[in-house]
């Protein structure tokens, strides 16, 4: 029969039926149901298995604090483990499965753990799996890993989109229960910008779960009216399905909106969830209170739940957790469960109240001064054993038990900035004390547990918060309603018996575990938490922590406030990692930057490589080339023989202008720049203040007060930031302005003996680029292709006669095509980053491999460049003794003694006759390439006292691959060491 435990009433839409399945069995529910309420309505109360002992478990609560009813939702890539059945909204076709059981939920083989429970007490990991030590890695850890954890992942990519959003408001009201709604109405009517956020899918909070009179109608009706009014206000944003998960600095709150979790698939164009960052001037925390259980023996059977939650299932969802119900309470609020159920005609077997003065409730028996001391029922509750005031025991048959140990104000967010709550003796609960700046608390969250008090606190809280920011608001008229004073007797656990009484059902922590931890010396609640795992995992002990620390207080002879709470940290409830990532996944996380010649290179079938975010052509295979080396060798040889073109746009370009620009450059580069003539380029070596090399590049002086500086591709951002620091923080009155123009100019290297001839066909005739008019290290502003403005720099990375030519970026594609066309008669090639690398190694130029953050100018053979006649960044500290040792590492060239042999970058140098170990280390190889010009492998490397060791034979050792190669120490300049080609 369908929905055998569904009764009348409730806030569900019976006009629609939703079909869903749990562990493969089909059921029906209605819109407005959660998975838990629908299962209960169908008579299913067994929803999971305990973490350690695999005991049968059902829902303890009806909300996000749920420790037990964790299920796996959906299938395939959308499969979602450890989802709380108590908050999962039902939708048509929902597929849910129980977790942590095998072969089935009703018969779980691992339940044998329950019989072995004495081995699984607090700290059992630490005690049980210690010896023998060798067993840990091979035996214990794999077993524990298999047994631990609840749900499973499919390892498929999440197909849904997650978004981030930003909101600004005057007042953020957290929680849309009575106080939150009253606050939002107050602020909304005053015209303030208001956000009202609630984790539930219906606003109203406890109003939807209670039956007491509310003005002339019900609390549910009032909440619906309030929501309708708020929906009309353009200044109010009501956000249901939105959990405020953290209170951060300066009025910034984080909130997770579950936009599509209640749908089988997100609507087209809609994200699954949105992580909001809310900037608010003030916040009012109206997060209500969470009911706490009482621990007693076998208090974890399905059917035993918190009294208020039981009432919610009956009142809000019209789902009966059992046919015969009992209530165990230490406070008046718990009695409501009994009266509500009786008024609905449900059989309430007894009210068990540990207080002596409980009033009579008509329709049931009240057992005063009594305690539940045990329960029975294999897969669910069948009866409870009660110890009466006179000491006699009585067994009461019931299949549901509502337990109330009082209510804890939900102080979580008040503590996100290290505030600690204050103990309230009357309520036997912690209440907020110091809140994050700008936050105030109203209603049950503030210990105002009656509905009337919550309403009043909501409206007055909003008035006060708005007054703080200069907005005048008037309190709103509120209906008359329940205003009972809280009456509670502190009662945490039943002392009777030797069995297990559960405190934390999610982590299977019992009263005995806490006592054992205390016995073993764990006194601080933080240690207690970590040793017993009390309060960990998805619920963070929302129903468990209070009991644990009350017992610890008792054991240590301290008061509860002296014992204190553990620290509350964001997020309030679990947040999918996907929501934190938002759209920052794949290319959204790391966009691709394309060079101006990218389209042309793609047409040529280029192979690309990622260089930071840039995609650069690595080589350009020609038909018939089957190995990358064939392409690269061809590109290198053709360039050195005739001419080659390479897109070097990715190098950082910084435009430096101002009357003090030359002086500025003089201070940020180690070598002098003051005397650089207009129309000339100079290599610049940039140090960090500690004297290590930061970056290098060329600087061209286009005018007295105008320079173009380049940086390496990798350091473009960092160098620019550094230059801004120097300009603003160190020399604030230097007249110098800088701007990054990396993306403004497309820049190509044109290198090789025919470079000039090629360029003469591109550069307009009125610009003389002959060797005399435009010598090595010359630069100038020119025009190309009939009037297009361009910049020409005669600089060379390859060692050839070479230029770099720059045009505005949008002409980059046109220029590469024009140059390739012009180069046809010279058999010009376009080369990629591999050939670029080979040629710079052949020439002995340092690059990223050498500028690795641990090298000094001296290491790179450029010690003499550091001017001691001027102040520049790093010029003082690079003179430290340790950086100027005689035997320091020096950049040298290396070639194999046997040209047929090769070696790899990262190899370490060892003297010929020495043992290859770290103490004999002589330095390391930084860059290696095959030189098609020389016909063998060449390398650059940092060798101890390298300058004095030319001609020596040493070993290049790669212990990882077991390779040792005899190499000769040579000059780093393999090709054209005299630089004649450059100046040709």
């Amino acid at each position, binding site marked *: 029969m369908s929905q055998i435990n569904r009764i009348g009433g409730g806030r569900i839409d019976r006009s629609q039926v939703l079909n869903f399945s749990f562990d493969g069995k089909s059921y029906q529910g209605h819109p407005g149901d959660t998975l838990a309420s629908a299962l209960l309505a169908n008579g299913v109360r067994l929803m999971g298995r305990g973490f350690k002992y695999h005991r049968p478990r059902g829902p303890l609560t009806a909300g996000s604090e749920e420790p037990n009813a964790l299920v796996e939702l959906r299938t395939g890539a959308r499969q979602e483990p450890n989802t709380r059945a108590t908050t999962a909204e039902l939708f048509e076709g929902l597929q849910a499965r129980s977790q942590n059981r095998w072969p089935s939920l009703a018969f779980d083989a691992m339940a044998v753990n329950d019989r072995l429970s004495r081995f699984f007490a607090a700290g059992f990991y630490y005690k049980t799996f210690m010896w023998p030590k060798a067993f840990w890695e091979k035996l214990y850890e794999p077993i524990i890993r298999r047994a631990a954890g609840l749900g499973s992942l499919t390892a498929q990519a999440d197909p849904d989109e997650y978004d981030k959003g930003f909101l600004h408001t005057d007042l953020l009201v957290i929680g849309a229960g009575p106080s939150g709604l009253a606050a939002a109405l107050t602020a909304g009517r005053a015209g303030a910008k208001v956000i009202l956020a609630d984790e539930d899918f219906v606003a109203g909070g406890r109003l939807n779960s209670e039956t007491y009179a509310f003005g002339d109608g019900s609390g549910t009706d009032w909440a619906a009216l309030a929501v309708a009014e708020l929906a009309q206000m353009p200044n109010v944003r009501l956000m249901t399905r939105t959990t405020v998960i953290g209170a951060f600095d300066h009025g910034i709150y984080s909130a997770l909106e579950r936009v599509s979790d209640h749908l089988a698939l997100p609507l087209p164009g809609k994200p699954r969830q949105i992580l909001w960052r809310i900037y608010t001037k003030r916040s009012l925390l109206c997060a209500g209170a969470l009911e706490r259980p009482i621990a007693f023996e076998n208090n974890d059977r399905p059917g035993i739940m918190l009294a208020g939650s039981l009432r919610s299932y009956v009142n809000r969802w019209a789902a009966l957790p059992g046919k015969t119900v009992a209530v165990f309470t230490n406070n008046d609020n718990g009695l409501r469960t009994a009266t509500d159920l009786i008024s609905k005609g449900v059989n309430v077997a007894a009210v068990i109240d540990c207080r002596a003065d409980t009033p009579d409730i008509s329709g049931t028996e009240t057992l005063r001064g009594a305690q539940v001391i045990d329960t029975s029922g294999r897969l669910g509750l069948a009866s409870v054993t009660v110890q009466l005031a006179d000491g006699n025991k009585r067994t009461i048959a019931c299949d549901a038990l509502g337990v109330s140990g009082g209510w804890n104000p939900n102080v979580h967010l008040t503590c996100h900035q290290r505030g600690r709550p204050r103990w309230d003796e009357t309520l036997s609960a912690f209440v907020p004390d110091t809140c994050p700046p700008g936050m105030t608390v109203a209603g049950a969250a503030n210990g105002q547990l009656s509905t009337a008090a919550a309403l009043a606190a909501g409206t007055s809280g909003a008035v006060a918060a708005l007054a703080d920011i200069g907005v005048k608001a008037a309190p709103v008229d509120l209906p008359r309603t329940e205003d009972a004073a809280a009456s509670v007797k502190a009662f945490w656990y039943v002392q009777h018996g030797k069995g297990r009484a559960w405190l934390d059902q999610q982590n299977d922590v019992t009263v005995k575990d806490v006592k054992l931890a205390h016995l073993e010396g764990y006194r601080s609640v933080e240690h207690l938490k970590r040793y017993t795992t009390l309060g960990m995992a998805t619920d963070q002990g929302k129903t468990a922590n209070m009991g644990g620390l009350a017992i610890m207080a008792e054991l240590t002879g301290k008061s509860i406030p002296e014992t204190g709470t553990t620290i509350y940290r964001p997020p309030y409830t679990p947040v999918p990692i996907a929501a934190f990532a938002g759209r920052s996944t794949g290319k959204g996380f790391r966009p691709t930057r394309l060079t101006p010649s990218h389209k042309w290179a793609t047409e040529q079938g280029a192979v690309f490589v990622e260089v930071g975010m840039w995609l650069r052509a690595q080589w350009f295979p020609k038909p018939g080339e089957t190995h990358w080396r064939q392409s690269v060798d061809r590109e290198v040889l053709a360039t050195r023989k005739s001419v080659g073109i390479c897109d070097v746009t990715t190098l950082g370009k910084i435009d430096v202008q101002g009357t003090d620009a030359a002086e500025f450059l003089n201070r940020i580069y180690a070598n002098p720049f003051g005397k650089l003539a207009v129309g000339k380029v100079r290599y610049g070596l940039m140090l960090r203040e500690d004297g290590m090399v930061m970056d290098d590049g060329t600087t061209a002086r286009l005018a007295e007060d105008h320079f173009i500086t380049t940086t390496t591709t990798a350091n473009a951002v960092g160098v620019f930031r550094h230059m*801004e620091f120097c300009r*603003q923080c160190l020399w*604030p009155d230097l007249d110098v302005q800088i701007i990054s123009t990396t993306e403004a100019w497309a820049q190509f290297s044109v290198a090789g003996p025919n470079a000039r001839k090629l360029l003469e066909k591109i550069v307009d005739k009125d610009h003389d680029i002959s060797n005399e008019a435009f010598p090595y290290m010359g630069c100038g502003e020119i025009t190309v292709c009939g009037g297009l403005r361009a910049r020409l720099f005669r600089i060379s990375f390859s060692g050839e006669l070479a230029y770099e030519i720059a045009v505005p970026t949008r002409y980059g594609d046109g220029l590469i095509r024009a140059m390739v066309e012009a180069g046809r008669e010279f058999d010009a090639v376009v080369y990629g980053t591999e050939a670029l690398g080979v040629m710079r190694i052949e020439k002995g130029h340092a690059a990223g491999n050498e500028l690795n953050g641990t090298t000094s100018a001296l290491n790179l053979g450029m010690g003499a460049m550091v001017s001691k006649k001027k102040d520049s960044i790093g010029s003082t500290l690079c003179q430290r003794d340790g950086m100027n040792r005689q035997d320091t590492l020096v950049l040298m060239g290396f070639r194999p003694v046997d040209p047929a042999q090769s070696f790899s970058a990262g190899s370490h140098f060892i003297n010929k006759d020495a043992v290859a170990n770290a103490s004999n280390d002589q330095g390391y190889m930084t860059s290696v390439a095959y030189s098609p010009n020389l016909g063998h492998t060449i390398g650059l490397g940092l060798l101890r006292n390298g300058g004095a060791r030319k001609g020596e034979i040493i070993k290049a050792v790669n212990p990882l691959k077991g390779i040792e190669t005899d190499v000769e120490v040579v000059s780093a300049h393999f090709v054209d060491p005299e630089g004649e080609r450059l100046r040709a």
Partner: protein
Amino acid sequence: MIINHPLLGPRDSQEFTYLGDAGLIERPDWQAEDAADAFYEYLYLRDNPAGLHKELWYHEQGDRSWLVVTRNISSHEIISVELARDVARQKGRSK
């Protein structure tokens, strides 16, 4: 955190890049007798106060201003925000 930029008003701290102690503004005189020691202290030695701290923030995703933010690093309360250039001038730095 929100940093109240002197030119642009309140901005989210994620627009900024953090550098560290604002003492880095006070770069020593390279010609002083004790320049080596002074530079060593300037670069490596930092106070680590549990409380007010002057620190350098760079508005990298914004107007590229370097700012000196006086922040209580225990509570994250920001006491003042100044242009680093102005602070440098107050400390006698010029050209």
